[in-house]
């Protein structure tokens, strides 16, 4: 707990960050930037976990550990995503998401 800073301020930060991530995911055409938006989203979620843990249940560590796991998952996800991106790039010679639209109908 940080004296003088209410829980909600953290939440405001994470919420805004979350939606900025979503905004990025929706407007960015480049696959890598979309991935970066996802990282933002994950990060904002992590902040929430940690903050809730710290402010509401300081005698436990669930939020803390879940953040660690999320980071691990994010790392795995990033690795796979980048592998896919590289593959997409080979196939379409571009990493524009609008090019990769064969999966339809």
């Amino acid at each position, binding site marked *: 707990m940080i004296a003088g800073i209410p829980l909600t301020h953290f939440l405001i930060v994470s919420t805004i960050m979350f939606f900025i991530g979503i905004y990025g995911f929706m407007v960015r055409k480049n696959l890598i930037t979309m991935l970066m938006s996802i990282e933002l989203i994950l990060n904002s979620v992590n902040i929430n976990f940690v903050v809730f843990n710290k402010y509401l249940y300081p005698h436990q560590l669930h939020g803390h550990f879940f953040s660690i796991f999320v980071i*691990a998952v994010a790392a795995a996800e990033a690795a796979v995503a980048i*592998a896919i991106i590289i593959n997409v790039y080979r196939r379409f010679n571009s990493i524009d998401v609008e090019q990769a639209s064969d999966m339809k109908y």
Partner: protein
Amino acid sequence: MNVVIFYTFAAIILLFSLLAVTSRKILHAAVFLLFVLISTSGLYFLLEYYFLAAVQLTLYAGGIVVLIVFSILLTSGIDDRFPLVKPLKAAASGGLAILGIVLALAAVLRFPFAAASSNALVVDMKTIGRSLLSYDVNGYVLPFEAISILLLAAMIAAIVVAKKKGEKQS
């Protein structure tokens, strides 16, 4: 002092995350993302979760961002600038995001959070290590193992996916 540091970090996070999704140069975006991640780890430091902050720094700010930068270098020209986002799309998405923010914050701000319990746990490395590997009530060995396998699978998957497939390709 902490208050000042918190608001500084918060400002950095918000500013650079916004920049990260709006910057028209991809490498800049990656760097902005790095700042956001580092600031986040700063928040963790403030919250006295040092181990988590370290993990955030090394894994996120270090590993993932480097990975992203690599892939950027592999796939994009450094000087390429993204075309401007179509105004309609930007407006729609931005509107939606703002609406989301408003809704979420309206809920959050009205929610009466219960007061914290007083006996805060000291998070030292020993506690963390024990918790991760213990299998009693507050132990995390199962998710820990699951994550291990996930990481392994992801590693293999990444290799398989990214591997060149013989001569059939290209």
